[in-house]
């Protein structure tokens, strides 16, 4: 059996052989966000998204969690460690992912993180990930609330690792991952040595629902809370000041007028044809 070392800070790769296959330790970046089904608002003075109250696991990241669980399973062993940054100490999204089956979680929470941009977020995630050196980091192609889609690549550059974005299929090879990367015209087959960062698109795997047993087990799984002092990051590089950008204004978008509404009585297609003729499409 392999000792579960991944959660402890460790230096370099620990050769860990169980049978013939090496354990696979995967970190998944998971964002906890305000419930997208609820009312979202911006703080009128800071223009930051209001992140008070309960946060949930970003749906986009549930694919990364599921993918990590499947990869570890296919490798025959290893850990799935969640990494999340949130300004307010929120853990409910992490508990959801632990209930799906992740091994442990690291939460970086600090008031100084409020207003961080993608690069600041990547800095924090990189510092946390360096402490336990996973073989592979998974993230979503983009988050639901921020959707910059750049955090994982910035993270990879800060770690000095390769990255493959827009993965629609991932499997493990000898010391590498094989990825089908979505392209404009189809997909590329990409091979990438580990350690690496891979971002997965929605719909690639079917995220499992946490079972009752999973939910109970999640309560006692290790959840490590770190501050930015623990990570040794200069706070001036984080939060709103570190973002070096500001919102100038927020306005309602211009509305588009609606036109004619026709209830189909079996001949509505004729109205469409007439419309197409008028705009010279036909």
């Amino acid at each position, binding site marked *: 059996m392999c000792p579960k070392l991944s959660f402890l800070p460790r230096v370099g790769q620990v050769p860990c052989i169980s049978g013939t296959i090496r354990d696979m330790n995967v970190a998944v970046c998971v964002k906890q966000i305000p419930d997208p089904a609820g009312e979202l608002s911006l703080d009128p003075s800071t223009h930051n998204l209001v992140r008070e109250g309960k946060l949930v696991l970003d749906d986009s990241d549930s694919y990364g969690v599921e993918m990590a669980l499947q990869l570890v399973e296919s490798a025959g062993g290893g850990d799935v460690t969640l990494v999340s940054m949130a300004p307010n100490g929120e853990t409910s999204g992490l508990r959801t992912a632990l209930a799906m089956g992740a091994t442990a979680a690291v939460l970086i929470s600090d008031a100084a993180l409020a207003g961080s941009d993608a690069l600041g977020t990547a800095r924090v995630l990189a510092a946390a990930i360096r402490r336990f050196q996973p073989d592979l980091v998974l993230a979503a192609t983009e988050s639901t609330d921020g*959707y910059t889609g750049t955090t994982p690549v910035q993270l990879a550059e800060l770690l000095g690792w390769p990255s493959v974005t827009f993965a629609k299929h991932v499997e493990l090879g000898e010391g590498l991952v094989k990825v089908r990367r979505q392209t404009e015209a*189809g997909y590329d087959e990409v091979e990438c040595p580990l350690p690496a960062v891979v971002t997965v698109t929605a719909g690639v795997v079917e995220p499992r629902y946490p079972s009752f047993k999973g939910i109970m087990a999640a309560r006692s799984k290790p959840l490590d809370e770190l501050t930015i002092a623990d990570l040794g990051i200069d706070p001036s590089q984080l939060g709103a000041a570190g973002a*070096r950008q500001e919102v100038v204004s927020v306005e309602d978008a211009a509305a588009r007028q609606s036109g*004619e509404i026709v209830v189909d009585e079996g001949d509505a297609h004729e109205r469409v044809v007439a*419309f197409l003729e008028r705009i010279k499409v036909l």
Partner: protein
Amino acid sequence: MEKIWVLAEQSRGEPSSTALELLAAAGGHASVVEAVSWGEGVAQAAQVLGEHGASKVYDCRGLGSSLPGPRVGAAIASLVEAGGGPDCIFVGQTYDGRDVAGRVSARLDVPLLTNVVGLSSGDEGLVSEHAAFGGSKVVRARFTGAKPEVFVVRAKTFTAAATGGSAAEVVPVELPDTGATDGAKVVGRHEEEQEGPKLDEADVVVSGGRGLGAAENYALVEELAKLLKGAPGASRAIVDAGWVPYSHQVGQTGKTVKPSLYIACGISGATQHMVGMKGAKNIIAVNKDESAPIFSIADLGIVGDVHKVLPKLIDAIRARS
């Protein structure tokens, strides 16, 4: 502003439409516009890039089996570090554009503004526009000092325009050492067969949503798109359901389209969908629910069943030709 660089994607000597849109935008804000490009055929692309306002194109050349992110990102960073860098860099929000921008940002320690859907000159430099809350709000933002300012811009934000310039001067770029970051290698490329125009360039887009009921009914959408010489699109609901590939998705997390005509079939009109298509000149919606939000922006709304309306419409159009 003195100088703007545009990350200009090209394929086989032909610049992408987004590259030309970004050049047009850059020309409105800077006296010098230069492009950065990669791949075989940059020398050929220099003609059209020049005609659209680029005086130079920095040529990172063919990347072999490498992905563009780390290599082109490192090339841009080292050009900037060597001096003579631009005030701003415009990058298209594309598969590779995001990768390059992310690498540049981390290498140069500069922040990014992403999902830009408009740019204007303010007293203190460029101000970017972003669609927030599914497009119901417009947020304007700017950088507060870090240079170069990197704006990652969504396709179809600007209109390409030729300026009448001559071919851009091609400046070969030495690629710096990228170490382990360049480890990912493309070992095979698969291109799905594509008939008709590309989704984000098509003059007519016919999209389907969950109201189609089943994956096989998407054929109605494809058929109608083909008859109108357009491209088929989709809502995220049916992309996530696996009925069609992600490349078909229209909306906040998919493509922005601005065709002359958009036909939405069995799509409710969630704000995240509408933000990607409400720039269409004409919108037709077919939905069986008269209170579907899509009707609020449709020029012609048909309250009806897609399974009845679409086959008749297809037959009627077919009968004309």
